[in-house]
């Protein structure tokens, strides 16, 4: 445990030695872990297939971008905007969920997919007549996060170490990740978490246990959305530029692949899935390209295509051969008090 913590703390400096790019890649991977853990609440815990999850990420990103950029000339601090982004995303989640969560699971999948597309279309088109989102050109020069005098846009030296922007974001993201994992673990093993699992296992039996299934599903939906909202805000701050292109259906599918491949419902499995699917494409980029150059003298297969094919096959093969994912969730066991305990 301590070793893992130390390794995680030292990691960015080691990566920075190999190039800042790797720190950035790691940051994006953490963002995807945050997204996957959010989606895991919806898909893994409550068993609701959400195919438009990236729309909530987009909502969070745009809330941040609109309230902290020259676009409207508003520059609110991040500690106001990030929670606001989470709130707005949760609100969108509730708005979408309220009428649709009564539907059967596969219908919900399609409606969420449609919702994801609607959000993207609106982001693309709300550049006129009133310029809200700046359309396909996106929003640029988004403020970096700043805590008091500490700006995440520049490099500071501390204790003889260089803290570049990406490294600062790394630590902020790491802190958020720890918080999100903590929240997830607490939620899973709680009255609400058990109710989610009950809905996932058998909705009718869940109702017969006194669970208001519509409400509990809405809660999962809004909760998952709020995680995506925060992650979206961080994405906007880190990138400094966002456009609707970052929020296409493929991204939703990617996050879903991470959850499914890792192991729906198992927090550690989901993290594993997100890490694998975040880093494998990067490795491909650095191996497939030179290998093809070497063997064929030119690029035959775009690593991007290989990445997508891996996602596709991962989904099909995992479902056929290992439906629980690489690291399936196990039956939760409780440490029981001694048998002599007097029954209430």
């Amino acid at each position: 445990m301590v070793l893992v913590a130390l390794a995680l703390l030292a990691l960015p400096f080691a990566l920075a030695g190999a190039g800042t790019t790797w720190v950035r890649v790691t940051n994006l991977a953490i963002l995807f872990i945050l997204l996957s853990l959010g989606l895991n609440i919806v898909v893994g815990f409550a068993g609701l297939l959400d195919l438009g999850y990236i729309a909530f990420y987009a909502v969070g990103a745009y809330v941040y971008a609109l309230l902290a950029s020259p676009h409207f000339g508003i520059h609110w601090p991040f500690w106001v905007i990030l929670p606001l982004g989470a709130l707005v995303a949760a609100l969108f989640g509730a708005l979408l969920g309220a009428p649709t969560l009564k539907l059967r699971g596969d219908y919900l999948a399609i409606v969420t997919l449609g919702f994801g597309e609607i959000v993207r279309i609106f982001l693309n088109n709300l550049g006129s007549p009133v310029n809200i989102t700046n359309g396909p050109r996106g929003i640029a020069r988004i403020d970096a996060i700043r805590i008091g005098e500490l700006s995440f846009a520049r490099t500071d030296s501390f204790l003889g170490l260089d803290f570049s922007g990406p490294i600062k974001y790394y630590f902020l993201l790491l802190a958020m990740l720890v918080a999100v994992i903590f929240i997830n673990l607490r939620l899973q093993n709680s009255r609400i978490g058990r109710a989610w699992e009950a809905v996932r296992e058998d909705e009718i039996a869940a109702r017969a246990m006194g669970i208001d299934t519509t409400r509990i599903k809405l809660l999962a939906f809004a909760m998952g959305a709020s995680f995506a909202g925060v992650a979206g805000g961080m994405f906007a701050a880190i990138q400094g530029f966002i456009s609707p292109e970052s929020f296409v259906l493929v991204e939703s599918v990617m996050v879903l692949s991470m959850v499914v491949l890792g192991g729906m419902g198992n927090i550690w499995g989901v993290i594993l899935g997100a890490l694998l699917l975040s880093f494998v494409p990067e490795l491909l980029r650095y191996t497939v390209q030179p290998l093809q150059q070497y063997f064929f003298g030119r690029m035959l297969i775009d690593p991007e295509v290989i990445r997508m094919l891996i996602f596709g096959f991962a989904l099909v093969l995992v479902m056929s051969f290992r439906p629980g994912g690489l690291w399936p969730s196990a039956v939760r066991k409780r440490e029981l008090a001694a048998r002599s305990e007097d029954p209430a």
Partner: protein
Amino acid sequence: MLACGQKAFAAGAIETLMDIFIQQLVNGITLGAVYAVVALGYTMVYGIIQLINFAHGELVMIGAMVAFTLIGVLTPLGVPALPAVLVATLCAMTACALLGYAMERLAYRPLRRAPRLAPLISAIGVSIILQHLALLVWSRNPLAFPQIVKTESFALAGATITNIQIGIIVISVAMMLGLAWLVYRTRLGIAMRATSQNAQMAALLGVDANQVIALTFIIGAALAAVAGVMVGSYYGIAHYTMGSALGLKAFCAAVLGGIGNIPGAMLGGVLLGLVEALGAGYIGDFTDNVFGSNYQDVFAFMVLILVLVFRPSGLLGERVGDRA
């Protein structure tokens, strides 16, 4: 997707409101006919195994790609236009039928007893695989429809209708009638309907459910191939991403009509085509040009959400709900 409803419209000069209306009607029916044919594939598969076959839209794309490639090969060899299109379409149908069969055998059949989400997730995987295999084979660039059929326009009550539009409508109607005959008048159709009503009972009566399900996929896939050729020739191009949006809309059409219901899919397709064309044509007027035809793609999803909220069984469908 392109805002096709606008194509003929923009070309015209000053037309009266009525003419615009009729023009949008023509465009809407054309598009709706294609939606209907694709929606049939969704609805047949759903009716029989309650699976939303996400990859169905990709079959439309592959149908168009295969056919266009073949036409491109055949035409320089001196094959006349009509036989070239015919042969290419037949080959596309065969290719898609095989693909549909393979899809069912490899990705869905092993999951028939799995929880509901499993085949759905598998279907998403298949869709991604097909799309990117197509990207590998045909590259990122769109394939242009070889200009072997000359587009001719006819005047129709103040609007224009092209020979391609007429062709699409005629072929779609013919295929729908053919399918209706197949489902309601043949042994296979009876077996299909029996399996969708009660698979166990049908099996007891000697229906080979696996065979019927495989055939359902094959028929749906062949229809998708024809739809691909039609929609490709309508827009003049085929592209590896064309399937997903079209597939989604066709699915919306199937839900609108009542999923699992064959006449419903036809009705839903045509209605959705009309809603889109008329909606895109008039939304600017209604909203003082705040929204334009670039919102065309939103309509299908709006319709979907409204239908699911207010009448989940669709226009012609039976009640869809959980049973105790």
